[in-house]
């Protein structure tokens, strides 16, 4: 079923694209009275007629396969009611309706025996075929992966539409052109040779522009669907895309040979044009066309493969390149800088060598050597060990509950060697071949979340680190990764002052869920983009004065867009009742869910009374440590005003650690 659906997609795409290309090629070649040219036009038209029927029939098969997919059962493909439902109720169905209508009109136009004797009639009929073919092809963009790109869906659809249309002109035009060249290169084709040469030149000019558009839109779409190098080499979608790229390069190489050599050999007028040269060009163009059809097969496969962005990439290499390594390593930075400049020099030399005529070989060879030396100089310092899971995205978001369970797991499984505080000073670690890593150190930030996950799962045999893939579930291991991130960034945050550093957010506030009384749970995330949050951790026995101070400035804080969330250090269902009549506190008091929040935020600051100022994007910007005495709330309010005055709000952090 899958294979049939895929084959139908391929046939459908190829026929829809060939219809556009055939019409384009006929228009480019123009009207002619030469018998060979007319025979060619009639052949292409006859092919188009049948292709229009093939496009309709294969479209029905694809739609049926899609229906089976949507309904989750193969039988639905044969039920008219199910197919009708898909047509009427889904966006893909709407696209199909429009396209079927247009394809039917196109088929009617092609099959009708219209008289095209006059020049006006000819242009109207052929132009209409191109118009209908193009607007029947372009809507596929609104039913493919581009329609699922977020954000900027409209931009992705527009790019895809342009890409598809470009493919129609270039890919679809190749085979008709090859047919024309072959007919003209034949023994009795002399009458159409000037016509064929002109057509080839016009097509070559148009194709150059179209290929540039295809490359540009294709690159932008690949970025939208794949995202990064890991997605390109680590997922099925990415690898298919690489295969497509290789085929595209092969087709472009043929095209380049045609433009640079074969087209030039067609110089001269009419009958003097060399038949062998034209036959060679015909063969090369046909080869290009065949490669293009193979590319369409890959495109059909890509269209039923989930885009790399939504897949977990498996990194296939033992190393990766990381610029983060260069921070605080001036020697390596200098080497990379020099190496990159040498490489650029090599590239310039290469470009010059290719552009110049004569003495090309030594220049190109020399440039390649320089380029290689530059790359060899620049890359090694950037290489970092990598693992299959290096670019895996954590399946557990960076949340207080996850960090808290990670902390508990850490105490149970890791503290013996890595030490209770993560300094690598646990009693059991002394006997290991290599001292356990200091998990608080900034270098922890150089490793991706996926690296940590790999070490947790598979251990580090040479260092004596055991593997935990049997003992701990995947979720537990991610909890540990989240805890380690909080631990090392908390260690870096131990000196964060009570004043904000303007425009320099770096400490992500872990999300958490809390409940006030019997109302439904809320999360920190809900305040993103709307409110600044003052997160207060208090111990009621000593914090009454401070709570009263904050409560007294309720109006000012609300006016400045501050939401106060107070978390008791000791989780208590009756936290509000305990505060009682005085002070009259009206801001949110967490009555449920305090425990994990305290456990996670304790890693950032541990004091009897702590207040975190969290900006609208979800970054902790300032920390006030105290004992619960009434202090100077005006200072906090001044910091909030500075936050409100920040010109460019920083981008919100992602839901997961990296």
């Amino acid at each position, binding site marked *: 079923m899958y294979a049939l659906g895929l084959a139908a997609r391929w046939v459908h795409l190829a026929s829809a694209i060939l219809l556009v290309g055939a019409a384009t090629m006929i228009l480019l070649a123009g009207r002619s009275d030469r018998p060979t040219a007319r025979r060619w036009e009639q052949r292409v038209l006859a092919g188009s007629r049948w292709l229009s029927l093939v496009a309709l029939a294969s479209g029905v098969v694809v739609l049926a396969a899609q229906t089976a997919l949507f309904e989750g059962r193969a039988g639905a493909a044969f039920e008219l009611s199910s197919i009708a439902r898909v047509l009427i109720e889904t966006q893909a169905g709407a696209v199909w309706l429009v396209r079927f209508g247009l394809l039917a009109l196109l088929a009617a136009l092609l099959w009708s025996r219209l008289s095209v004797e006059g020049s006006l009639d000819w242009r109207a009929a052929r132009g209409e075929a191109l118009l209908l073919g193009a607007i029947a092809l372009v809507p596929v963009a609104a039913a493919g992966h581009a329609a699922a790109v977020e954000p900027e869906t409209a931009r992705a659809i527009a790019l895809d539409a342009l890409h598809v249309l470009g493919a129609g002109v270039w890919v679809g035009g190749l085979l008709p052109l090859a047919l024309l060249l072959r007919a003209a290169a034949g023994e009795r084709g002399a009458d159409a040779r000037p016509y064929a040469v002109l057509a080839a030149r016009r097509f070559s000019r148009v194709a150059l522009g179209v290929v540039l558009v295809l490359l540009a839109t294709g690159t932008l779409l690949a970025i939208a669907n794949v995202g990064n190098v890991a997605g390109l080499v680590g997922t099925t979608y990415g690898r298919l895309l690489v295969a497509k790229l290789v085929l595209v390069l092969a087709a472009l190489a043929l095209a380049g040979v045609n433009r640079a050599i074969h087209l030039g050999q067609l110089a001269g007028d009419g009958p003097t044009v060399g038949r062998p040269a034209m036959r060679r060009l015909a063969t090369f163009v046909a080869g290009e066309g065949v490669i293009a059809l193979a590319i369409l097969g890959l495109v059909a496969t890509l269209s039923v493969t989930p885009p790399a962005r939504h897949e977990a990439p498996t990194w296939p290499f033992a190393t990766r390149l990381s610029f983060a390594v260069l921070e605080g390593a001036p020697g390596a930075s200098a080497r990379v800088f020099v190496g990159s400049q040498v490489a650029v020099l090599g590239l310039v030399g290469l470009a010059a060598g290719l552009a110049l005529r004569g003495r090309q070989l030594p220049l190109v060879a020399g440039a390649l050597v320089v380029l290689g030396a530059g790359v060899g100089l620049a890359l090694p310092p950037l290489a970092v060990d990598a693992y299959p899971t290096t670019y895996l995205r954590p399946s557990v978001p960076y949340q207080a509950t996850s960090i808290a369970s990670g902390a508990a797991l850490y105490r149970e499984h890791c503290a013996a060697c890595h030490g209770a505080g993560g300094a690598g000073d646990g009693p059991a670690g002394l006997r290991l071949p290599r001292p356990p890593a200091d998990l608080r150190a900034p270098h922890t930030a150089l490793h991706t979340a996926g690296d940590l996950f790999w070490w947790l799962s598979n251990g580090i045999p040479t260092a004596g680190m055991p593997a935990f893939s049997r003992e701990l579930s995947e979720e537990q291991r991610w909890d540990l990764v989240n805890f380690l991130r909080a631990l090392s960034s908390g260690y870096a945050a131990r000196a964060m002052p009570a004043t904000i550093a303007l425009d320099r957010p770096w400490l992500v506030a872990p999300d958490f869920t809390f409940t006030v009384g019997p109302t439904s749970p809320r999360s920190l995330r809900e305040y993103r983009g709307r409110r600044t949050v003052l997160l207060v951790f208090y111990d009621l026995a000593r914090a009454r004065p401070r709570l009263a101070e904050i409560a007294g400035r309720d109006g000012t804080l609300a006016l400045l867009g501050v939401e106060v969330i107070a978390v008791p250090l000791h989780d208590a269902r009756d936290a509000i009742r305990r*505060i009682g009549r005085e002070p009259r506190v009206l801001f949110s008091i967490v009555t449920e869910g305090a425990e994990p929040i305290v456990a996670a935020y304790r890693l950032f600051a541990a004091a009897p009374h702590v207040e975190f100022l969290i900006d609208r994007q979800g970054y902790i910007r300032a920390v006030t440590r105290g004992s619960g005495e009434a202090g100077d709330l005006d200072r906090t309010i001044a910091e909030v005003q500075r936050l409100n005055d920040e010109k460019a709000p920083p981008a919100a952090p992602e839901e997961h650690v990296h």
Partner: protein
Amino acid sequence: MRAWKAVVLLNLALVVGVGWGYVFWGLKVARLDRELALARAAAASGVEREWVVAGVVRAILPELDVLVITHGEITGLMAPMTMGFRAASPKIHEGISIGDEVRFTLRGVPPNVAVTAIEKTK
């Protein structure tokens, strides 16, 4: 038939088809908008309504006959928040203290609503 005539007819048919679809959807959207507006108006009209809401008592201001309650969503009236509500009678305050989790009845013509009954849930 001459080809250019056929093509002109075809394109006319296309334009009519697109226009018809545009008008069809436009009319449908306009109708849905009207219905939505009507439904909104009905919700906001001067009809007395009643809600039963869960919340937690934050403050009691007997001199003003006001209860401050942190409550969940009140459908069609307000989002979850901490809010002062007028008590319909002074009796409402009796037996209620700060920190009590309650279920209270809110009645009135929005935005003039008052607490008409309140009971502890815990």
